């Protein structure tokens, strides 16, 4: 997963709110002075270091920070987390990891040793989650990685039994996509020419390396298979080349900025294959804002059970709580929120601050979350949404088809309309 630039209004808003918060905090500190000591036993200290600056800011601001804030607000409004027969509120300690692995590790060591927090929420993104893994493992803190996609997840879960990899592996993502394409071809809805592009970064490389053999084994014809460097501004040549090949399926394992650029360029060039699939960012609310009616039929990585009451309720609460009414993304947001619910339920079942027992409960327990009932197997969920599709303004999960709430795919994709 990767960076996306927030619109400047949004940045301005966050800046303003941050400044106000700081001012408020300063005033509070000045007036209250030292009267706030001696309440340590009556709260649960939760710490996190998150990317507020640097290239990860966009992803953290869409997927992670709003969910952490929403959860803390809701839990505290309800009186806090239930420990035994009393409720104790959450107290938050947070730092900026500046999108830097070294900084993230040190911030966590500070949270653990200096701030002595009871629990830690993970940073955003695959790289940083892997960077903090050894520290959380050594110190015995549960590590609920909700924004990391890595093929080594099963191995990591064994190496660090305190770590939980909730977003799955890229091999799985590619497999699900190819299964869906196979089914569509059997139903005679698509032919067998595929054009695939991928970004030359962790995500694109992992997914295309997994998809390439899967497509070839399924006897799809890979008419186009290229990668482009991060930060490529002009994607028009790629789109035009692909249009000339007239494929049935277009797959882009892309990051948010190029997901937007590829979609825009395809609309302009009139590249409208029967299946149009783009990568990270397709599930972002920004995508819907930017393309409106043109999102109809676009497939992408992620998805959720948009018809479920729990998700509808979560969407409404998220919009109400966010300062600017921002919506969650339709992939890792709900998973992130679910991971917080799991943590809370595990703590409440244990009934005290006993991290080893909480880890044990996370490994074995069943949890009632916004993404449905979750029971982990080898520290990983058994159900993921891998392909979603924009249908009538909502990004519904369509594959794997066996998932509860999976919608049927709209194929062929409707033609682009003038914006």
């Amino acid at each position: 997963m990767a960076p996306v630039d927030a619109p400047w209004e949004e940045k301005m808003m966050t800046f303003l709110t941050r400044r106000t918060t700081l001012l408020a905090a300063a005033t509070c500190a000045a007036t209250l002075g030292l009267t706030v000591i001696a309440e340590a036993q009556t709260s649960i200290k939760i710490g996190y270091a998150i990317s507020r600056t640097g290239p990860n800011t966009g992803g953290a601001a869409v997927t992670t920070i709003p969910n952490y804030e929403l959860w803390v607000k809701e839990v505290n409004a309800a009186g806090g987390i239930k420990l035994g027969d009393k409720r104790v509120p959450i107290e938050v300690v947070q730092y900026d990891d500046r999108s830097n692995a070294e900084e993230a590790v040190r911030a966590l060591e500070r949270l653990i040793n200096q701030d002595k927090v009871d629990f830690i929420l993970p940073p955003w993104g695959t790289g940083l989650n892997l960077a903090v893994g050894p520290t959380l493992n050594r110190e015995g803190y549960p590590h609920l990685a909700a924004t990391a996609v890595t093929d080594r997840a099963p191995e990591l879960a064994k190496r660090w039994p305190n770590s939980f990899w909730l977003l799955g592996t890229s091999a799985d993502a590619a497999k699900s996509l190819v299964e869906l394409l196979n089914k569509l071809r059997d139903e005679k809805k698509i032919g067998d020419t595929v054009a695939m592009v991928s970004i030359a970064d962790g995500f694109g490389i992992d997914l295309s390396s997994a998809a390439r053999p899967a497509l070839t084994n399924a006897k799809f014809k890979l008419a186009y298979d290229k990668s482009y460097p991060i930060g490529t501004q002009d994607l028009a040549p790629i789109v035009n080349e692909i249009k000339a090949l007239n494929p049935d399926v277009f797959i882009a394992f892309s990051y948010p900025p190029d997901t937007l650029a590829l979609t825009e360029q395809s609309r302009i060039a009139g590249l409208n294959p029967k299946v149009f699939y783009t990568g990270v960012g397709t599930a972002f609310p920004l995508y819907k804002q930017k393309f409106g009616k043109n999102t109809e039929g676009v497939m992408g990585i992620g998805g959720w059970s948009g018809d479920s009451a729990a998700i509808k309720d979560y969407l409404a609460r998220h919009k109400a709580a966010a300062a600017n009414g921002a919506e969650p993304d339709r992939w890792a947001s709900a998973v992130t929120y679910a991971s917080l619910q799991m943590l809370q339920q595990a703590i409440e079942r244990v009934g005290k601050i006993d991290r080893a027992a909480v880890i044990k409960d996370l490994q074995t327990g069943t949890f009632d979350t916004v993404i449905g009932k979750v029971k982990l197997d080898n520290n990983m969920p058994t159900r993921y949404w891998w392909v979603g599709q924009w249908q009538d303004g909502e990004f519904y999960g369509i594959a794997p088809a066996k998932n509860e709430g999976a919608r049927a795919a709209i194929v062929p994709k409707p033609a682009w309309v003038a914006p």
Partner: protein
Amino acid sequence: MSTRIAGFGATALAALALLALVPRLGNAYYLALAISLLQYTVLATAWGMFSGPTRYVSLATTAFFGVGAYTVAVLGEILPWPLVLLTAAALGAIVAGIVGLSTLRLSGVYFVIFTFGLTELIRQLVVWFEVNKSRVLGRYVFVNITQADIYWQLLALTAAVFLLGWLIARSRLGFALRVIGEDETVAKHCGINTTFAKVALFTISATVMTLVGAIMAPRWTYIEPSIAFNSMISFQVLIMALLGGAHRLWGPVLGAVPLTLLFELLSARFPNTFTIILGCIFLLIVYMLPRGVAGLFEKLSTTAGGKPTQRVAA
């Protein structure tokens, strides 16, 4: 003179022995902070070793640091650790040698720009190779190295760098570099092989930086080009060395230690306004301490009646 050196050596050894006990404190946070302090001390001192006397401002710190980190990412699980470090050092030296030979004829701002571009060049080469040849981007480093091990290795490297710097300053090479720093044309006329002197020191300094990258890599488990080649390191090291005073061997430490502590304090106390405060502090440093902390000490000792020094800030 020799008794002074012996006394100094004894003090340094005692300090080293004391510092080696830091991991025994058993507080992972202080250990992390100490690792950070040593990392920047070595990097800034190595930077000052070359850039101080020659006044070539290099932004290539990240390039060598990254080469070291990536060597560990590729070989960490295959070779025994000392061999990995040796390979990293050798790679760093080779890259520095090639780069030095081809670019140390550049001077002034051209050299600065080239060294900055070098980081991006190496990073893109690594990306290209990983994407097209190995087809993995992002490597995992699972080696059996604890935080205390990292600390001790860095401490040993710090000691080695200071010893090396002290020896070079007393050698013909050190003298040659000071002449080059004052006036390169004059140096040539005096019969100094300026190219050799510059490339030799550039290579030594770069090898040390490469070793720091290699030693630090096991701390992160996961390495990808954007993590290994983070250009912030180049700038931070430059600022630290300038604050301390790059014209003295012990100058950069005086910048690295307070600035690392300051970064730590700011990111702990003001996580949201970190960059703004940092910018203001940099402005203050440039205006108030143009010759660094070392320069300030010299000035104080001069006004207190010592000998006036003729050096100009690097």
